[in-house]
């Protein structure tokens, strides 16, 4: 498009950036906008003071155009908010709903599992502090361990969880529960936004 190598390189970098940013909008709009920007830069460079080197005129034209991220933002917002319906959109929508529902169910299950493990660790930790001889992890033999959460039965064995280790387990349990709560909150917000 330009004779000067630096001018051409500057323009190509800008165009590539614009194309990347425009990735979210439809192909027609992307093509039109790139076509417009190209025509504008050509015209702008042709109109600019001819005593300036071509590379500088291109830089001036691009500076006047501005950062593509700024002026393309409303188009991307448009594309996201009102994507045009396509043929077979009913099936696509149904498949998308199933996929989203499945992914959300999976995330809910992970959050629930994490919360459950966290709760068990918390119970184990508190029980271990309150009744270290009945609640905790016990070594029954060389390679046989038992986890006792409720401490209802007298099982014997040597307690493995020292109070400090019990506290660490409790802290880990709290972190897991906090993370599960955050994940659940995010999931609920997404679901509420879709309703």
């Amino acid at each position, binding site marked *: 498009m330009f004779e000067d190598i630096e001018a051409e390189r500057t323009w190509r970098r800008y165009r590539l950036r614009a194309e990347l940013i425009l990735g979210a909008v439809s192909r027609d*709009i992307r093509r039109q906008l790139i*076509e417009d*920007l190209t*025509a504008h830069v050509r*015209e702008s460079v042709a109109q600019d003071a001819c005593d300036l080197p071509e590379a500088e005129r291109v830089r001036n034209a691009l500076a006047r155009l*501005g*950062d593509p991220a700024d002026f393309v933002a409303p*188009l991307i917002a*448009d594309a996201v908010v009102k994507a045009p319906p396509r043929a077979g959109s009913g099936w696509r929508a149904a498949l998308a709903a199933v996929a989203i529902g499945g992914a959300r169910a999976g995330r809910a299950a992970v959050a629930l599992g994490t919360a459950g493990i966290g709760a068990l660790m918390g119970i184990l930790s508190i029980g271990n502090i309150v009744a270290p001889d009945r609640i905790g992890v016990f070594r029954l033999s060389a390679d046989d361990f038992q986890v006792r959460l409720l401490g209802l039965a007298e099982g014997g064995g040597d307690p493995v969880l020292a109070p400090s280790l019990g506290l660490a387990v409790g802290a880990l349990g709290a972190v897991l529960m906090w993370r599960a709560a955050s994940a659940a909150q995010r999931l609920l917000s997404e679901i509420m936004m879709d309703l």
Partner: protein
Amino acid sequence: MKPGKQAAFLANWTSQARKGFLELLVLNLLGRREHYGYELVERIRDSSGIEINDGTLYAILARLQKEGFIQHRWEHLEKGPARKYYDLTPDGKNALKEMRAVWEDMAGAVRKSGARNV
């Protein structure tokens, strides 16, 4: 309101108000006669005094074309780069009429409701 906060509020408000205004301005200019992009940018700058990035205009043109309000044709010049001329479609002319009426109503309402002591 603190000066910094007020400036930020005004900048945001101006940006919001400008969006709709620029679309009307572009349609208005194209309602008079066809323009090519570069010329349109110059006209907007001259007629409104608004400092906009040239790219903003092309985003507006893309939007208006997608709505079916404007159409274009290419003109290949013997000397100089090819020019893409924009013009209003019949839908664009109707939209312009409606938008002008809304604009007049809003401007009238602002004038009528304006506090005298400000």
